[in-house]
């Protein structure tokens, strides 16, 4: 949910204050990038799309209305639409095996390799889920959003989110067991 300080920052951003939007960018850039990266499985495309999401958000910040949901819900909505548009316009498809390694935080090379292997495994598994199940898994378990926040971001009732989550986990189990 929105805390008082974030609300003030959002109000400043709505008022056209670039530095306020800069703070929001710093806070949510990582989450949105991760969400997009796991859906498109390509670093540069994820960067371009993330840039476009924040550009759209800043361009349309004056139409944003505070309704009690976190600011990230709005950003996730823009990101989802951006990814949908991306797939609609994209002609060629990328082979998941040829995808570049993501930028991860790790200490040693071993650790990094292990992490990248796990991420590849997750990406592979997630890519086999439906779009809605992908969204729920990423938002709930990777970006740690609450069911209510996830519902707001995906514009669906909480009960639907719970059902989607249950099905997504079952499907992930099946995919990872193979």
């Amino acid at each position, binding site marked *: 949910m929105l805390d008082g300080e974030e609300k003030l920052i959002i109000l400043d951003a709505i008022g056209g204050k670039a530095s306020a939007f800069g703070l929001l960018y710093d806070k949510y850039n990582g989450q949105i990038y*991760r969400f997009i990266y796991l859906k498109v499985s390509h670093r540069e495309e994820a960067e371009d799309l993330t840039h476009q999401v924040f550009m759209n958000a*800043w361009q349309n910040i*004056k139409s944003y209305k505070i309704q009690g949901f976190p600011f990230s819900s709005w950003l996730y909505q823009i990101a989802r639409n951006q990814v949908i548009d991306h797939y609609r316009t994209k002609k060629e498809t990328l082979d998941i095996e040829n995808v570049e390694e993501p930028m991860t935080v790790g200490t040693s090379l071993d650790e990094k390799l292990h*992490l990248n292997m796990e991420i590849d495994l997750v990406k592979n598994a997630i890519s086999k889920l439906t779009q809605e199940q992908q969204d729920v898994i990423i938002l709930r378990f990777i970006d740690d959003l609450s069911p209510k926040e996830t519902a707001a971001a995906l514009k669906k009732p909480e009960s639907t989110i719970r059902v989607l989550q249950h099905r997504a986990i079952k499907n992930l189990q099946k995919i990872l067991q193979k």
Partner: protein
Amino acid sequence: MIENEIQKILNSCKLIKPNQEYTQNSKMVILATQPKETSPIFSARNLFEILRTSGVVGIVSFLLLFLMGGVSYINKNFSPLGLEGLSQKSLITEAKDINNSIEITLKQIKYLDQSNQKTINTISEVSKNQPIFSTTTPAVAATSTQSAATSTDDISEFLIETSTSTVDSTDDLLNKAAE
């Protein structure tokens, strides 16, 4: 594989981070632009809000009207105008009045027709009989002769016209009488 293991694997994805250089560049580019000015009156969202509100108001007022018993009930009981065109009672009364006036006219026509017929009959009877003039006063005789001559011509003036067919038949009869 249990859910905890899936959770562990998914947690590894939390370490995915965007390139710092890209982040800085992207931020600078975005903040260098100006946000769009939204028109408070003509924006699509406002239009949608207006349509939604008017739709809700329309539905609610229709339901209220429906619950209150419709237009005729409201007109009958609450309307200060009292539109007669919508009142069933006033329409029936009006129709009765029109019927009555038609009946009266028909009766008048029938009565006039009968009286015309009687007059014609009387005239024809009078014309068949020979006129009797008194010899006492030649002036009276003259006037009576004059009246006998003119009576048939002026009769039509005293007759009340009812319809063209009746008038025609009366004229024929009068002509015969004159002959």
